[in-house]
């Protein structure tokens, strides 16, 4: 990897310097609008958290090109095994903002029925965006297994699984890549190297020079990409997806980017992220860069940019309102979905609890805040 250059297409001023991928203007604009929406939703979520209206969120400012660039290279029939920062991928494929907000408010309309923490989404439609869990890396071999099912049936579906620099140290990374290397799985392993795993800098995460090189030990080609460059991300993932569909096997893509906020709404990054580092990355803002490119190509003007933002604001505002008004999950959702059918013993537990409530009243709700 040491010798291989980082794939990049757009200069910071939006001028094309590399191999420009062919993308229809509509697609470019949809990507742009999704990036704007993602950024806005992210900021709004943080404000909601700070105001105590939702318990927790995970900032993803700065990584919009990674997410949207990757998503744009997938078909709706493909599968995404995301990490907790990836909701932009789902937005790109048309998951309604309202669904996102239900998941942030953990209300009764949330797909997880309010069982999960905020932003741990499950969507099946219009793209398979597989249920997110908190443990790091567990989803990686799952993507490989899901891909094997497609291989077995002779489908040309591609599977993208996304994780962080920290995630490469997880067990799932290892077992996922071991299996994918042997099975030649149609999987795109997207490592979002955003510089940090909470407070652990990427260079204390591994002794290697970057993360793309980790593919070699599994027979999985690796490539480093400028993660703040939409066109580069799109190109890299599209190439990997084409390989996957044609039986060429897996690819490990390292998107080099920077987490511009805290790890989560509970984190204070000023304690460990050098200010200078943030400043230098601020100049590489992926949305600004992409916008410059679109303007240069004459695909975007001030009015359209403003319209994209206004549309995002309106959508999010409406969704916040709807989500906040939605009812809490019904108490019986505690007991359902453990198994396909509630077993008699668990049904009894539930009945006993409802009986207790009828005698002793409701439980007192907590304050709803995740303290870190």
């Amino acid at each position, binding site marked *: 990897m040491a010798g291989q250059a980082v794939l990049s297409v757009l200069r910071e001023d939006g001028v094309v310097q590399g191999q420009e991928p062919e993308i229809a203007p509509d697609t470019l604009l949809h990507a742009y609008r999704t990036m704007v929406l993602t950024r806005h939703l992210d900021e709004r979520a943080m404000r909601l958290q700070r105001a105590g209206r939702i318990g927790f969120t995970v900032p993803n400012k700065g990584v919009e090109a990674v997410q949207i660039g990757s998503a744009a290279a997938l078909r709706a029939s493909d599968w995404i095994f995301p990490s907790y920062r990836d909701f932009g991928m789902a937005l790109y494929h048309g998951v309604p903002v309202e669904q996102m907000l239900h998941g942030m408010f953990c209300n009764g309309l949330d797909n997880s029925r309010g069982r999960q923490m905020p932003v741990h989404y499950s969507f099946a439609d219009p793209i398979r965006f597989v249920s997110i*869990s908190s443990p790091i890396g*567990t989803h990686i071999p799952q993507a490989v297994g899901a891909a094997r*099912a497609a291989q077995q049936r002779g489908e040309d579906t591609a599977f993208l699984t996304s994780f962080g620099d920290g995630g490469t140290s997880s067990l799932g990374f290892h*077992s996922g890549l*071991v*299996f994918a290397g042997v099975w030649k799985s149609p999987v795109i392993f997207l490592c979002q190297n955003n510089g940090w795993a909470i407070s652990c800098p990427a260079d204390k995460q591994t002794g290697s020079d970057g993360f793309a090189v980790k593919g070699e030990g599994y027979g999985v080609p690796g490539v480093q990409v400028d993660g703040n460059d939409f066109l580069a991300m799109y190109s890299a993932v599209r190439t990997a997806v084409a390989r996957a569909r044609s039986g060429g096997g897996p690819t490990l893509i390292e998107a080099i980017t920077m987490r511009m906020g805290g790890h989560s709404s509970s984190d204070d990054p000023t304690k460990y992220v050098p200010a200078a580092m943030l400043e230098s990355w601020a100049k590489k803002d992926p949305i600004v860069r992409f916008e410059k490119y679109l303007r240069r190509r004459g695909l975007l003007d001030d009015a359209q940019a403003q319209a994209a933002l206004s549309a995002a604001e309106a959508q999010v505002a409406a969704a916040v309102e709807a989500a906040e008004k939605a009812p809490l999950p019904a108490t019986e959702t505690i007991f359902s979905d*453990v*198994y396909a059918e509630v077993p008699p013993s668990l049904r009894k537990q539930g009945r006993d609890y409802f009986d207790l409530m009828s005698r002793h009243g409701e439980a007192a709700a907590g304050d709803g805040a995740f303290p870190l």
Partner: protein
Amino acid sequence: MPTLTLIQAVNDALKTVMRQDQRVVVFGEDVGLKGGVFLATEGLTKEFGEQRCFDTPLSEDGIIGAAIGMALNGLLPVAEIQFQDFIFPAFDQIVSEAAKFRYRSGGMYTVPMVIRTPYGGGIKGGLYHSQSGEAYFCHTPGIKVVVPSTPYDAKGLLIAAIQDPDPVLFLEPKRIYRSVKGEVPEGHYTVPLGTTRTVREGNDAVVFAYGAMVSVATIAAEKVAAEQGKQVRVVDLRTLSPLDEDSVLEHAKQTGRVVVLHEAPRFCGYGGEISALIAEHAIEYMEAPIVRVTGFDTPFPNTLEHHYLPDERRVCDALEKVLTF
């Protein structure tokens, strides 16, 4: 009806479902050409091809992680863990993932899958080829835990497990893989999950057991009958989780004297749950202490494993305690 050993019944179950349902795939370490270290999967690769029965790299985390993915995407995976002692690298995948997928996604993503694994002692396997880890999994909501003790049940329960919409851990008592034989119907049938089986009738006391301990319980019961004329009921729990609690309570109430038997260490073992259930819901029927006969609270030894494993001496002693209290 053919007479099969327990492991032949497992093999027969796999073949039966694989013939009927293309979605069933079997994999794990050495399950292909070698047919598994105990030969549970013998002949599968030959009959169904390498796409449906295949070896994996040496990673239980990968095996279970991949199985989950396959289950999410329309297959019915049957993963083998070579020994239950080696399931722990996959513990995170089982406990954090397989068991919680349905719940966390509101039923949107589900993982119908089976993990088959030989468990238990009695083969001079020492610390790492003898363990009985059922309690770890029974304490984990979202996964079912099944243990057959006869060839008939092995086939019927395994087919039911493979057709079950939820993840099932299927623990095979390896000590009786070949020593237990019985009639097994050809073709498809199921033994429903979630029911117990009365192995021996009796109203003076009841022994709850499962796996290789069922026959130990039965031998002890026969001995007590012969020597003391007392009739001890033996109940095979066979689906450990979710347990048919009503059945357990019924047996306890009808006999009033209870012994709980398993190989695993006692402390926080499965037997504690049975005792606790009864102590909460049927204590007024108890005419004696509820006695557990179990492995010791130590790792599993090798040379002295015959001391560690509950045998009829120990069950008879416990029965004496509850019968004479």
